[in-house]
């Protein structure tokens, strides 16, 4: 084994070059003023203070809200789907999981474009509405469109992570519950649901984190006015050219993500302790 350990070295070098160095650069940018020379830096905390402006705070809160609603919708929609798949025959399970994961193989940008052609004013949905004689609806560039894109994109992660736990659930426990007089609903509430919580929690991590920082979906489905924290950062770098401020927001974002990760980790630990299982750990 020892001999192979050195094989990992090029990988570490690669990683540090292309991941760690850019990260360090972000930290450097965040704590310095603009117009730096290569050698002399002027350190400052102004970039961070600048963020605490009602305009930006509102963007942050909006991002958290959208991510939260997305996550909730994913749980509400994803749980029943995961439940149905987990209770299907083994053959159908494989097929259904394949179907669920299929869109994930296609680039997110492409998938989002597909929604544009469905939702836009002359798009598929409105044509259909017109066809059956219903009034046209404004769908693009609304909260609805953004939320739809988010849920569509992140739902598979929720389904898979809940499904993984439900599929592993010992059927004998369900029989035991029936045996002790619990009807199907009572069995679900008292046995299945509590035991599947680890899957829900890891699903939350998988959905909330990318949802809170995404910028592609709000940009395309929400339009130029639709500003979430991911778009704010993107703008600072690409449109405005304020790399220092953009870096500072990125760090604030990273901090929020880390904090929420730690929170879900703790929830996960509590849930696993209660169920005595390793349930739901996808990594």
């Amino acid at each position, binding site marked *: 084994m020892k001999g192979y350990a050195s094989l990992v070295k090029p990988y570490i070098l690669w990683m540090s070059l292309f991941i760690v160095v850019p990260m360090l650069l972000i930290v450097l940018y965040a704590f310095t003023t603009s117009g730096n020379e290569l050698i002399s830096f002027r350190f400052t905390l102004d970039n961070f203070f600048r963020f605490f402006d009602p305009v930006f705070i509102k963007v942050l809160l909006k991002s958290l809200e959208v991510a939260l609603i997305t996550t909730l919708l994913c749980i509400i929609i994803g749980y029943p789907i995961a439940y149905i798949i987990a209770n299907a025959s083994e053959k159908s399970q494989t097929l259904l999981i394949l179907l669920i994961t299929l869109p994930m193989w296609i680039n997110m940008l492409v998938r989002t474009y597909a929604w544009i052609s469905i939702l836009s004013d002359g798009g598929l949905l409105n044509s259909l509405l017109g066809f059956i004689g219903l009034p046209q609806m404004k769908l693009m560039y609304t909260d609805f469109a953004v939320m739809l894109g988010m849920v569509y994109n992140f739902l598979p992660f929720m389904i898979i992570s809940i499904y993984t736990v439900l599929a592993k659930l010992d059927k004998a*426990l369900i029989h035991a*519950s029936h045996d002790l007089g619990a009807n199907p609903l009572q069995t679900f509430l008292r046995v299945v649901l*509590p035991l599947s919580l680890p899957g829900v929690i890891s699903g939350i991590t998988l959905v909330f984190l990318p949802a809170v920082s995404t910028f592609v979906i709000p940009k395309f489905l929400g339009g130029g006015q639709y500003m979430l924290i991911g778009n704010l950062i993107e703008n600072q770098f690409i449109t405005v050219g304020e790399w220092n401020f953009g870096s500072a927001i990125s760090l604030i974002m990273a901090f929020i993500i880390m904090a929420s990760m730690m929170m879900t980790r703790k929830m996960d630990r509590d849930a696993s302790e209660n169920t005595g299982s390793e349930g739901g750990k996808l990594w």
Partner: protein
Amino acid sequence: MRKLIEFKNIVKSFDDSLVLKGINLSIHENEFVTLLGPSGCGKTTLLRILGGFISQNEGHVYFDDIEISNVPPYKREINTVFQRYALFPHMNVHDNIAFGLHIKKQDKQMIEQKVKKMLKLVNLQGYEDRPVTLLSGGQQQRVAIARALVNEPMVLLLDEPLGALDLKLRKEMQVELKKIQQEVGITFIYVTHDQEEALTMSDTIVVMNNGEIQQIGSPTDIYNEPENRFVADFIGESNILEGVMLEDYKVKFDDQTFECVDYGFEDNLEVDIVLRPEDIDIVPLDMGRIKGVIKSAIFKGVHFEVVVETPYREWIIHTTDKVELDKEVGLHFFPEDIHIMYKMGTY
């Protein structure tokens, strides 16, 4: 005793394989019935049909003379101790045991009282708050029994409940289970593939093989009067030989005719014969009808297991006397020690 459960011609198949081939069985109140048979013979399947977790393809199940085939499991007055206990891992000992009572929305104080009583019965006082995942196999097993019994079912189903325990603990639990059954006075339907366990605990043993009942009877019946070669072979070590029933009370095997106590067979019918190892005595050469040479003698704790070779076969004999290897000896047994059985498939 009142008849409580009746299986009528139960047939069950999975995919294309026939697992139960027409089971007919009655079980009475307060009876300790054991389903005994090799792994895969359909014991669990029969139990699951009674519990209501799967349904039969053909036949009827009656409980107290009422057909229950369409009653869902949560409405049956039956509780089960599952093969691997199936305790709820997210609940502690107390909540596991109280589960059924909570479902029935019993009064809080009543629940506490009953749980306490159960913990005492299974000897687990003070374990209320332990997570079940941290209990040993024997303790989990007792929680499973308490969780089932606390509902005061009329029938308790136990599917190889001691299978996962080591020998010593298993022996202790056998005694304890029997004691519990007598104390609470309900019907136990017990599944095992361990013939010794079946013989020590049961009122009635149902020997099964290949989805069919081979014999139903008391432990002594099953042991002393096995109905066929399978039962004789499965229940303890035996000398099983082939012979011919010449006429009533006369059987021929190993080219000799012996007197026996069985009758009512066709004359000259080919039969199977069983002679239990402990029913055969080793005697001086000139005193036995059968003569052979002692090949081996292994001490088994209480008795020696002796192998005597004759021109026809090797006999297994259990004796407490010391024997001499390679010595020529005679074998002796009484007419009532010879058990005649129909050959399988001819009755």
